């Protein structure tokens, strides 16, 4: 099947090293601690993060750190041939991979004996869902305020018609010759996830990896942008003074008790007038 024409243009009009259009929105689910919605081409993926919270099942809890329990699932209508609901072996495998990738970046030692639950639901699938899922999960984790080393982008490269291409769509994945999904930390170049289906020579592999790395950096920017947009409005107010200074005096209030002015600090002024005149 001819997936690339003579000019190097693919079935959906893209060049060999072009990503599908990506859209990311953070904070889309109000109930979840953190959430993200990602569209990559025709893929539509929703990720929700709950945690850190008490670990269920109890026997899985780790006394030294939090565990990440990820559940990747494809909704029945996400593919044209109805997918039977429930985890299948592929979903279990993908869940495991994503958990492990995230476990590497999240500072799990900060929350012993808890679990960070990550749910990834694919609403519409068009190849590369595990990459889109991981991309969404990383944004959701950041949205949930969970400490992590960096935000993780993920993309798949591959080979069709003997040409190394980036970000395979459904036809390219089904009729292509190789598929190489990767996830990495752009700053350090550490690879958190890598799988391969098909055949690649060493050179082709290097090419594909290089393409993937470059694309990850682009996706990283989109992820960050989504988070910044979500919190841009909050940025207008100063909330810094809150964390360090305990406010016990003002917590317990009833009409009878007078306010004790124990630990009030001058910079609390910032609460009402965000225009700070502090110099640099």
């Amino acid at each position: 099947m001819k997936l690339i024409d003579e000019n190097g243009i693919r079935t959906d009009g893209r060049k060999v090293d072009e990503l599908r259009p990506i859209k990311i929105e953070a904070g889309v689910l109000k109930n979840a601690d953190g959430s993200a919605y990602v569209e990559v081409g025709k893929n539509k993926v929703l990720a929700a993060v709950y945690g850190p919270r008490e670990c269920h099942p109890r026997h899985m809890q780790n006394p030294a750190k939090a565990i990440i329990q990820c559940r990747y699932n494809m909704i029945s209508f996400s593919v044209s041939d109805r997918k039977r609901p429930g985890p299948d072996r592929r979903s279990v495998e993908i869940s495991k991979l994503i958990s492990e990738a995230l476990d590497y970046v999240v500072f799990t030692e900060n929350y012993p004996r808890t679990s960070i639950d990550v749910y990834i639901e694919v609403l519409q699938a068009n190849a590369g869902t595990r990459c889109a899922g991981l991309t969404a999960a990383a944004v959701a984790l950041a949205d949930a305020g969970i400490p992590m080393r960096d935000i993780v982008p993920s993309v798949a490269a591959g080979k069709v018609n003997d040409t190394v291409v980036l970000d395979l769509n459904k036809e390219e994945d089904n009729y292509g010759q190789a598929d190489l999904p990767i996830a990495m930390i752009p700053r350090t170049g550490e690879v958190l996830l890598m799988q391969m289906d098909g055949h690649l020579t060493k050179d082709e592999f290097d090419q594909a990896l290089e393409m993937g790395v470059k694309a990850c950096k682009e996706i990283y920017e989109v992820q960050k942008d989504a988070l910044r947009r979500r919190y841009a409005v909050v940025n207008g107010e100063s909330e810094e003074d809150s964390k360090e200074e305990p406010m016990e005096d003002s917590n317990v209030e009833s009409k009878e008790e007078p306010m004790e002015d124990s630990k009030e600090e001058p910079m609390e002024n910032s609460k009402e007038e965000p225009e700070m005149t502090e110099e640099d």
Partner: protein
Amino acid sequence: MNNESFTRELVLPGDVLDAGTMKPGEGTYVDDGKIFAAMLGIKSVKSNFVNVIPLGGRYIPAPGDMIIGKVMDIGPSNWLIDIFSPYPAPLHVNEVPWRVEFGDTARYLGVGDTLLAKVLMVDETKRVQVTMKEQGLRKLQGGQIVEIAHSKVPRVIGKNGSMIQMIKTYTNCRIFIGQNGRIWMDGNMEDMDHAVQAIKMIDEGAQTLKLTERVKEFLESVYRKEE
């Protein structure tokens, strides 16, 4: 050199905060000689320490915090309190103001009861203990609870308690604010509704400057109508 400067800059995990001069504070990590943000929050610099104040995240108990909790479970010599945090907190019979017989715990606090307590201590494995043995700590009867993000609590309190005082004055409700993001209030139905709305305004809308004035306007408009 002033002790702090607010850059009010939103930082994301993995953002470089400083490359050399300052020391890493909370919410940061060091790699390769540079300080990076570990979580999504606001960058803040205090006496040469660079910190990230988280914008979200769960409440992590710290000793001395006043919190509002709910009884989840009862044991013969303690109660298990849900403090809206990843860790439930046991409340031992020795830490309550009443003299409780062994096994008689259900008589004083039942499942679902709300109480005002203080975090006694948190050990390295994040096991929390709470106490009710201090002044002002008690079981809370009636009323209702509003839950907000714990990072918004200082905003609800306001400078010197001004914001919360304003809400209490207008709505005539008794209000207790827990550091864990739970707020208990008691008053008549309508007043409580207004208070809840005002608090939700603060929780959701840290959008504009002059939040205090917007809340005040809202409260005034509501109460002026009723006169």
